[in-house]
């Protein structure tokens, strides 16, 4: 965990120092060097929470090996049960992220482009809760394809890659080309990683924060509405393994 963060920091520092040196500018986009490094650290830490307890291939595996059957027998909703499981697994990640933030942030230096404040921290919490839920629902979709396909691993990895890239887990989306900004603002990905990170860095106004929360909630509903028919259709095909 700490090694991961250290490697991430070294890579970020080397990359962005080179970018700033090459451009000869104080700001790239709207970010100074300390600000962009803070973004890198914070998106890493919030990302750990958003992805926390990630079931990864658990749902697909349960469809493949028939373990899904026991959940179909219990008087509970499978999706809710799995989310409860994921929520239970997220707490170690939250704790680790807090410890890592406390260790690193005091040494980050001051920045003109970010404003770490307790208000940002408080505003970040509902953003993280919604992002965690949205990440879970979006992760279900490729896994439910396991009802039809013999292997969904590559689909899941592809989905994860797209999510990370378009969610701002590598660089802030404001550094993407101008023509893509409109689409990126509408798509659900930015609400997973970039939005909670910008909130915590004090770069989102209260109005934008409320709009972002609402948009994220709408995406949760939209994704759920996509998952439900796929789940129902998949259930019709489920064999419970073997005849």
């Amino acid at each position, binding site marked *: 965990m700490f090694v991961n963060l250290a490697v991430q920091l070294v890579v970020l520092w080397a990359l962005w120092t080179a970018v700033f040196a090459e451009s000869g500018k104080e700001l790239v986009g709207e970010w100074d060097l300390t600000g962009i490094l803070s973004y890198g650290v914070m998106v890493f830490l919030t990302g750990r929470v958003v992805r926390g307890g990630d079931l990864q291939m658990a749902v697909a595996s349960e469809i493949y090996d028939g373990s899904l059957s026991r959940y179909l027998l219990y*008087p*509970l909703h499978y999706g809710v049960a799995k989310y409860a499981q994921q929520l239970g697994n997220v707490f170690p990640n939250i704790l680790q992220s807090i410890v890592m933030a406390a260790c690193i942030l005091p040494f980050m230096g001051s920045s003109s482009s970010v404003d770490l404040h307790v208000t940002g921290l408080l505003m970040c919490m509902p953003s993280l809760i919604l992002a965690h839920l949205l990440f879970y629902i979006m992760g279900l979709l490729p896994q439910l394809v396991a009802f039809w396909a013999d292997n969904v691993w590559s689909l899941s990895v592809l989905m994860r890659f797209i999510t990370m890239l378009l969610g701002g887990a590598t660089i802030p989306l404001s550094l993407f080309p101008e023509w893509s900004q409109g689409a990126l603002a509408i798509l659900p990905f930015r609400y997973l990683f970039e939005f909670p990170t910008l909130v915590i860095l004090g770069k989102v106004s209260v109005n934008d924060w409320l709009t972002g929360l609402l948009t994220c909630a709408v995406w949760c509903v939209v994704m759920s509405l996509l998952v439900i028919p796929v789940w129902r259709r998949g259930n019709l095909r489920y064999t419970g393994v073997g005849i």
Partner: protein
Amino acid sequence: MIKVQNLRKVFRVHKKPPGLSASLKSLFRRDWIEKVAVEGADFTVEEGEIVGLIGANGAGKTTLVKMLSGIIHPSAGEARVLGYNPWEKQDAFRRQISLIMGQKAQLWWDLPGADCFQLLREIYQIPQQQFDHQLNRLTQLLNVGEELNIQIRRLSLGERMKMELIAALLHSPRVVYLDEPTIGLDITTQKAVRDFLLSYRKEESPAMILTSHYMEDIERLCERIIIIREGELIYDGSLRKVIEQYAPYKRLTLHLQNQTLDESSKEIFSKMGEKVKIQSDQVSIQVPRTNVTEVAAELLRRFKIHDLSIDEPEISDTIEILMGGKDFRQE
């Protein structure tokens, strides 16, 4: 409690010949075959009844149980369990049923039994007092009180199965499906499980459907059996009657008094029945059920007999013949 009408399940299975070229070809064009797992099943099961579902591997027993527990959807037909359509998976229905699969662990392997049961208490919303009483009763009946706090993965197969039984019955289901509950267990544990199921039936009177390859399970637990062959139900009735109906003969065994058998004696035996077996002074003959008294009297008259016994054929033999494909109904 369980009513099944013309239930049918067809699986569409992808067929792929071996080899790389076939694998590549199947990316573009796939051959499918339809496998009929259950064909027009019709039966009912009443409260307190244990019905044995018997059939060879792949006959469709587990598919039938999966449909009745709501895990899979049928291709056609209807079923009502406790008045519910099983595959609608209503919570009120799922609170009243249970499925135990001997070949598939359903408990959480990393947790001790006690924690698994607490989790199930929450899932089924069992009142604490009822839960404590039921858990205490079941652990005593199965004698696993000491193993409750041990991780499931560290228990023996027999202990695990006992834990599975407790987990399945904690919420006092009114319908219980048992899919090979004694598979892989030693004789003592098999007997313990059977005794437990009988005492549970006596106290709670649930409707039970049991599938098993062990005839002793069937003989000890079921008064009624359903025989399924290649998806079709070929017999539904009393376990005892299966012999009368499908094995219309008895076996006479004679111990002769120091008598050597000549050719004419052998001819007499052959005329009186079928499948004559002669081993030194012991002769056994298969005789039609209606002629048994007459044949026995005739043999006693003709030969000096030390001992004579009349036996029913083995149930397992009759069922094996039925499952194997001989259709007595046409005879």
